[in-house]
């Protein structure tokens, strides 16, 4: 009898979880289906499935909004920021995790403390600083701001992972008299690759999804990122919801793809943050 009632309870739990899953997923399906409807059909039947598969919204986006350029821009900015951020963060994290020197803990606390400062407090002076150097409306501004603002959290995550690297291997290279940068590239980087991938996934999706930074620093349409273009350019056609929704769908595909491929890394990264 006990098993029968446990089975009932488990079935009930399954149903509740499935309902929540449907609620979680429905907006995404709605977005996908609506983007394949002509505007009139969308207005008449917002709920129904599309009657025929209709791709003109995507064509319109492609021809009217230089979609390739927007995606190219975003991939370029994200890629450059990732490289810049890692070049600065990996040595710092390694130093915090494995080297002994004076004031190490003091520096570490200072670095972590900057994580808690809200970004809006320094956006105005940074904007003016950039415009004085002549970097506003130029990709450098976005890359620099993205890379720098991600340094503290990147260092934090990499440090806590690098602490787990076996000291014996590192001692062995020191004995061999290997130069610092060789040890960095040949040993430290490969050994901390899972951490580097995890933190880069987080940074890349954050940057891809960021609105404020590119919105403020980039004014020209041909420099915009996908997210900003969706929020500003497409919003001018806000009555044409299927067009807007197909733009949203395209803007979401890269993060969704990253998520599906790298799920395990993302779960691990989140938990590291929570345990500390």
């Amino acid at each position: 009898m006990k098993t029968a009632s446990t089975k009932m309870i488990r079935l009930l739990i399954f149903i509740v979880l499935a309902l929540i899953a449907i609620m979680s997923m429905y907006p995404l399906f709605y977005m996908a289906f609506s983007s394949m409807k002509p505007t009139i059909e969308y207005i008449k039947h917002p709920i129904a499935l599309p009657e025929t598969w209709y791709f003109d919204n995507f064509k319109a986006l492609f021809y009217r909004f230089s979609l390739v350029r927007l995606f190219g821009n975003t991939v370029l900015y994200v890629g450059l920021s990732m490289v810049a951020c890692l070049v600065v963060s990996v040595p710092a994290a390694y130093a915090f995790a494995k080297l002994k020197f004076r004031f190490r803990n003091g520096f570490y606390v200072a670095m972590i403390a900057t994580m808690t400062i809200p970004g809006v407090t320094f956006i105005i002076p940074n904007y003016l600083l950039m415009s004085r150097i002549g970097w506003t409306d130029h990709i450098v501004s976005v890359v620099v701001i993205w890379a720098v603002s991600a340094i503290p959290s990147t260092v934090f995550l990499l440090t806590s992972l690098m602490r787990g690297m076996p000291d014996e291997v590192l001692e062995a290279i020191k004995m061999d008299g290997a130069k610092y940068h060789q040890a960095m590239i040949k040993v430290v980087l490969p050994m901390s690759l899972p951490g580097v991938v995890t933190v880069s996934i987080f940074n890349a999706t954050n940057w891809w999804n960021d609105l404020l930074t590119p919105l403020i620093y980039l004014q020209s349409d041909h420099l915009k990122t996908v997210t900003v273009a969706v929020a500003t350019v497409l919003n001018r056609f806000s009555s044409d919801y299927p067009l807007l929704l197909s733009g949203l769908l395209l803007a979401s595909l890269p993060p969704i793809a990253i998520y599906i491929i790298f799920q395990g890394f993302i779960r691990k990264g989140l938990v590291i943050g929570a345990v500390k």
Partner: protein
Amino acid sequence: MSLKQERWVGWFSLLPAFLLLAIFVGYPMFNTFFHSFTEWDGVNSAFIGLDNFKNIVSNGDLPLMLRNNLIFLLSVPGILLISLTVSVLLHEEVRGWRFFRSVYYLPAILSSVVIGFLAKSMFTNRGVVNTLLENIGLGRFTVDWLNTVPTEFMILILCFYWQTLGQGTLIFLSGLSSISNELFDAAKIDGTTWRQRLFYIVIPSLYPAIFYFTIVNVIYVFVGLFGLVYSITGGGPGYETTPIDYMIYIQAFRSGNMGYASALSVFLFFIVMLITWIQLKISKRLEQ
């Protein structure tokens, strides 16, 4: 490497990171603090003492902004409870729980802008939500969701919940899986009920995770709502749905009141510092 060498390698490894942080975080912060005492349009600044702060307190925006932030703040316990419940249910490991876990996190990977516009399109007058209500015979409950303040807040909070559920369940699930099975089995043998185990074993061992989740999201409702507010309400009507961080954007980049915006930033800075301070206090106590 000798110790002395190691010291220099250590400092040089930190140098680029700290140099960049000094230029793009340290300097701007002092600059913001300084300009919060000035009238400033981005080019010319004139020292006006505490006038900006007096203005914040007296011009009537402050209670409104604080009310708006408070509404979001009060929505945090809700998503905490939902995430906790869902992760306890997921932890029963019924068929398909791994799939559900993945699905719940999916919205968290999307941009606030996408989530915001998506929700906006669903809640328009002739959108899916109203159509659905009519189709199931609840036509009298249809509302012009995007044009009344309470329902606007409801949509914003709904989006916030939708974004956050996956994060919560992942954090709590990892906390749950760290509870030792022996403790659990021993409690079962002692004849405890499911509910007793929930309240005396499961919840207490989740305290650190609950605490972390709460702090992260409390800070988020103060500094992270920009994308949602921008895409759903634009802060309107008037400033009825404008939280502090969005107001800083409006004042600085739409109205050009950079001094006033700086003062607001300083204000927000101290709120976040206060929350962080509380976090440190409590986490020290938890460790003991």
